[in-house]
């Protein structure tokens, strides 16, 4: 039962494998694979594609902001405060210190996106690891990890973020840390439940029978099956994260002036809400639009992944 497997099969195979000058991969019928199918369905979803294009546009603006802002976002003018939207110089008006709103919004996209997306990304990695470990190993490890995580669920996420930020002190780094702590339990919970769902599948048993170590099984067999649902959930958290991050800045726990950040801008402009409500609302509109875009994209992604298991 040793050598003949390969030898006889090669013969039966009609020499497909034999010519070494042809790359074997070239002979195979390509299959789109799961992610290929998901991509195919996603590009045909106009809402998700629209949301994706908007996110892309904002990301590009955020990256290029220092070079493309029409005016200096830090330079104020006491004589030109609170100009209205549509002003000849200040296209989207000016803020309470006379700084150009559109420039500040463009530059603010950087920090807002950064402190909105980063905690979710970090939490995605940490939460998935905890959840997959708890779900796959099960037993007492699951109990310890998940009950610990339940403790975090006892606090409303806004309260938890504020409490952690308050304890750590103001600053971008600290607000990212506290938001990560808010999202890790949520992502871990989702990761644990999807992993528990597939842990009893026969292919996991088959992998165990092949002598693979638990770590290999988690990496090769489990991860590919759970990363999709976790990723969808994580993208839906980005909007929450942006709102929370803005909230922290609004409370003075996140970004500090004069750095432009949408939540902080909303805070400083609130004094002008009666004088110039449209300009005061602009940062909020930005937060709203980006959050909706992330949510719609995440919805589309989830729908595209609903392929038969």
């Amino acid at each position, binding site marked *: 039962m040793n050598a003949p*497997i*390969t030898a006889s099969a090669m013969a039966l195979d009609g020499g497909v494998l034999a010519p070494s000058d042809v790359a074997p991969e070239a002979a195979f019928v390509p299959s789109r694979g799961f992610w290929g199918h998901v991509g195919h369905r996603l590009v045909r979803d106009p809402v998700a594609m629209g949301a994706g294009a908007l996110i892309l546009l904002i990301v590009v603006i955020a990256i290029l902001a220092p070079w493309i802002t029409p005016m200096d976002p830090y330079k104020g003018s006491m004589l030109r405060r609170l100009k209205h939207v549509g002003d000849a110089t200040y296209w989207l008006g000016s803020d309470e210190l006379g700084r150009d709103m559109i420039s500040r919004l463009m530059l603010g996209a950087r920090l807002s996106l950064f402190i909105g997306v980063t905690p979710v990304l970090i939490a995605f990695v940490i939460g998935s690891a905890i959840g997959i470990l708890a779900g796959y190993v099960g037993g007492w490890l699951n109990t310890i990890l998940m009950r610990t995580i339940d403790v975090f669920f006892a606090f409303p996420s806004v309260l938890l973020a504020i409490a952690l930020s308050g304890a750590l002190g103001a600053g971008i780094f600290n607000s990212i840390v506290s938001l990560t702590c808010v999202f890790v339990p949520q992502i871990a919970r989702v990761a644990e439940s999807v992993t528990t769902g597939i842990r009893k599948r026969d*292919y996991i048993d*088959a992998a165990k029978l*092949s*002598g693979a170590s638990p770590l290999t099984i988690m990496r090769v067999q489990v991860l590919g099956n759970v990363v999709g649902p976790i990723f969808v959930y994580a993208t839906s958290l980005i909007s929450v994260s942006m709102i929370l991050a803005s909230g922290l800045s609004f409370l003075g726990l996140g970004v500090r002036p004069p750095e432009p950040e949408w939540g902080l801008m909303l805070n400083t402009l609130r004094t002008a809400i009666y004088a110039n409500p449209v300009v005061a609302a602009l940062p909020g509109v930005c937060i709203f639009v980006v959050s909706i875009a992330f949510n719609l994209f995440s919805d589309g992604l989830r729908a595209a992944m609903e392929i038969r298991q």
Partner: protein
Amino acid sequence: MSVIPSAPDPFAHDRGGPAQPLLSVSGLYKHFPVRKAGGKKQVVRAVDGVDFNVLKGETLGIVGESGCGKSTTAKLLMGLIERDSGTLLYDGQAVGERAMPWRSYRRQVQMVFQDSYASLNPRMTVEQSIAFGPKVNGVPGREAVERARALLARVGLEPKRFAGRYPHEISGGQRQRVNIARSLALEPRLVLLDEAVSALDKSVEAQVLNLLLDLKAEFGLTYIFISHDLNVVRFISDRVMVMYLGRVSEIGPSDTVLDAPAHPYTEALLASMPSLDPDNRTQVALLQGDPPNPIDPPRGCRFHPRCGLAEPICGDKEPPLDAVGPLHRVACLARQPSSGHSAAPARALAA
């Protein structure tokens, strides 16, 4: 010479000689705890003292009703669930001890599952699934993939067309062929087929059964074939083991067991098979009701509440699995001399 590199594996070859059973199971127990409404702890006696041997090169069929412990036995044999007690001797060597850890045992013993879809990872291509086993056992990636393609060709799936496909892109019969190829990727000596053809169409089932027979001859395999389909078991098995409520009720050569059954339960199973002859249709079910609850099995012989031969003694005395013919053993008091049952034969068989 094995393709799988490792320290010289003494179990890859015949150690004990042809007379040594390949797998010897004795006193296998598995009770699952359940909690009833009253809060009292109880157990499901899924496997309750099972002994049997699997001889080298044979196919041992295991039959029985749903819930009789067939699949639990399979999982215990594979170590997928932990046994409460009992010993497994693989080629004369106790499994789980230092000389034969589970890891080296599993390389020798592989399993094909019933559900062809659930047993393949939906995110992996067919060839990735087959190559996974060799890869984790140290075969370099490229070699493992070539080996997977060779095995695909061997089970009748053209690698060019099938290697890159995902499980949902191929039919049930093709998936089961893939599963068989995967089970062979580690060059096992014993393959456990747990209802491996039960979910297939009859025509596909026949093809897969023939494939199994071919592979067995080619690679010198030994099969444990679990099924509820007596016709399939008769076709493929050399010996048959009948299980009832977690115990072995009869074991012997398949011709003997299936043509001249000694245990009333086997008789009833055979009689409940639908006949193709219209003049010979079964009108009454011989087996009445469901099997008793394995949480609280009947005292004495487990089959006696449903048995036509039952006598008071059957409710008291648990029948041992004793020889009634060459290689043929039965756990029934009515077949065992001086058991106290009125139908018991007079003298012991000269064995």
